[in-house]
C-alpha cells in the first residue's frame, strides 16, 4: 500500500484497470464453483483428472491450497462456507443441493470432505456423510495429524490427543 502511494499516478491507474479486468474475466465454475476464467474450469474439463473423486471444500481458496500439494488429481466442489445455524447459515445457504445433484449425475466413488478440523467443519462433514449415505458413495474425511518435521514433544496436547485417536495400523 505504501509502495503504491509512492508510485506515479499512471502505475496506480494500471493496477486499477487490471483489477477491473480481472473481475470481468473471473467467475465461478458452474459445476464445482471454483474461481475460474473458463466455464467449466480446467479441473472440471481436464479429462486426465480422476472423475471418480470429488473433494469438498468450504472456500474457493482451499482449492488452491490442495492443488499446490499435487497430491490430488480428482475434482472439487466448493460449498461456499460451513454450516453454522448461530450465524444463520444452513445447508440451503451453501451449495449442498448442487453436491447431491452432482453425486447422482456423475456417480463418483469417493467424496473427500476437506473442511477445517473445527466444530463447524466437522459438523458439515458429518452432515454431508449422512446426506450422501443413501447414494452409496464412500465419504471420507481428511486425517488429523502431527505437523510434518515437527517434534512430538513440541506438539500441543490437543493435536497429539487427536493424532492418537486417529492412529492407524502399520
Amino acid at each position, binding site marked *: 500500500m505504501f509502495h503504491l502511494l509512492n508510485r506515479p499516478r499512471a502505475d496506480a491507474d494500471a493496477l486499477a484497470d487490471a483489477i477491473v479486468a480481472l473481475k470481468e474475466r473471473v467467475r465461478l465454475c458452474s459445476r464445482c464453483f471454483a474461481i475460474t476464467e473458463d466455464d467449466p474450469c480446467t479441473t472440471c474439463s481436464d479429462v486426465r483428472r480422476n472423475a471418480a473423486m470429488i473433494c469438498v471444500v468450504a472456500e474457493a481458496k482451499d482449492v488452491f491450497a490442495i492443488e499446490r500439494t499435487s497430491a490430488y488429481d480428482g475434482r472439487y466442489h466448493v460449498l461456499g462456507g460451513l454450516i453454522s*445455524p448461530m450465524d444463520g447459515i*444452513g445447508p440451503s445457504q451453501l451449495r449442498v443441493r448442487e453436491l447431491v445433484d452432482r453425486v447422482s449425475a456423475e456417480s463418483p466413488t469417493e467424496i473427500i470432505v476437506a473442511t477445517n478440523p473445527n466444530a463447524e467443519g466437522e*459438523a458439515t462433514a458429518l452432515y454431508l456423510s*449422512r446426506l450422501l449415505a443413501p447414494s452409496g458413495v464412500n465419504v471420507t474425511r481428511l486425517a488429523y495429524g502431527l505437523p510434518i518435521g515437527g517434534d512430538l514433544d513440541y506438539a500441543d496436547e490437543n493435536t497429539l490427543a487427536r493424532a492418537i485417536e486417529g492412529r492407524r495400523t502399520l
Partner: protein
Amino acid sequence: MRLEHVRLADFRNYESLDFPPASGLNVFVGPNAQGKSNLLEALAMLATGKSFRAHRESELIRSGTERAEIGGEARIAAGEIRLRCTIVRTPAGTRKSFEVNGGSVGFARFLGRARVVTFVPADLQLVSGGPALRRSFLNGALAQLSPVYYRDLALYQKVVGQKSALLRGAIAPDRDLLLAYNDELVRPATALIAARRAFVDELAAATAAIYGRWRGTRERLGVTYAPNPDGDVGEALAAAVESELRRRSTLVGPHRDDLRLLVDGTSLAAFGSQGQQRTAVLALKVAEYDVMRARTGDAPILLLDDVLSELDAERAGGFLGAVEGFEQAFLTTTELPRDLGAAATWSIHAATVTRC
C-alpha cells in the same frame, strides 16, 4: 507452587505495579474500592487466562489506556516459569495474547501452567444455587488440570450452541443436521462425563472427611455426580431426538448435569440449614484444593476474595486451618482478622501496595 514476582501495567486501576509476594499467607487489607480484588483477579488470570468476575474483558484495561499487561514469575514443581497475559483494545473488541517463558502460545497451552483455587463470595451459593454454578466449579478445576479437558469442553459448548440454534429455528429445520450434531457431540460429551465422574469420586472422599471433622457430628455428607445422560451418550441422544424437536431445545448432555449434595440422604440444597450449606461449600473448596494438589504433586495457589467477612470467625479459622499445608495464599479483607499467625500483610490504597 508459588508466585515470586508479579508486574502489572494498565490493569484495572493499576497504572504500574511491581509486587513481590511472600510465600505462605499474603493478606491484602484496605478500605473498599482500592484495588484489592483487582490484584487478586490479576493473579488468577496468570493461571486461568480468564477473569473470575469481569463481564467484558475491556473492563480489565485501565480507563484511557489501550493495553493491559499481567506478568509473573512462578516457581512450580518443574522449576521456574515466566507467564504473561496481554489484553489489547481493538476496534472489534479486545484481543488477548499469552506468553510462556517469553514465547507466545495459544490459550490452551497457557492455561494450567500455574494453578489456582479461587474462593469468592458468589461461591457461597455453590450448594444452594443452580446447577450451572456447580458445573462451572467442576470445569474450573478440570480445565486447569487438563488441556484436553479444556479442548473437549470448548468444542462441546460450541457444538451445543449450534445445535440449540438449529432447534430454536435460526435456520430451516433439518433432521439430518440435528443427527449430525448428535454424532459430533458423542465423543466430547463422553470424555467430559468420564473426566467429571473421576474428579467427583476423588472430591467426594475429601469433602466428606472435611465436612465430618468440622461439623463434629455423625452427619454424613454425600457428594455424587449426576451425569446427563447416565449411560451411553449416543443412545441417549438418539432416544431424545423427538422430544428435543418438540421442545425446540437440547435436553441431553453434560451441559445439563449436576453435582448432588446429600446429608444423611436428604438434599442439602432443599433441606440443609444455612450453616450446613456453608460448611459444605468450604469443604468442597478445600477438597478441590486437595485433589488438585494430589493430582499434580504441586500445591495450587489459593485466592480468597472477601470470604472471611462472610463467615463467622469459627468457620473462617477452620477453613484456614484446613488449608494449612498451602504453599501460598492470598486473601483480601477490609479489616485484619485477629488470629492470622504468620502472614505477610500488604495494605492497598489507591492502587499502591505497601508491606505493613
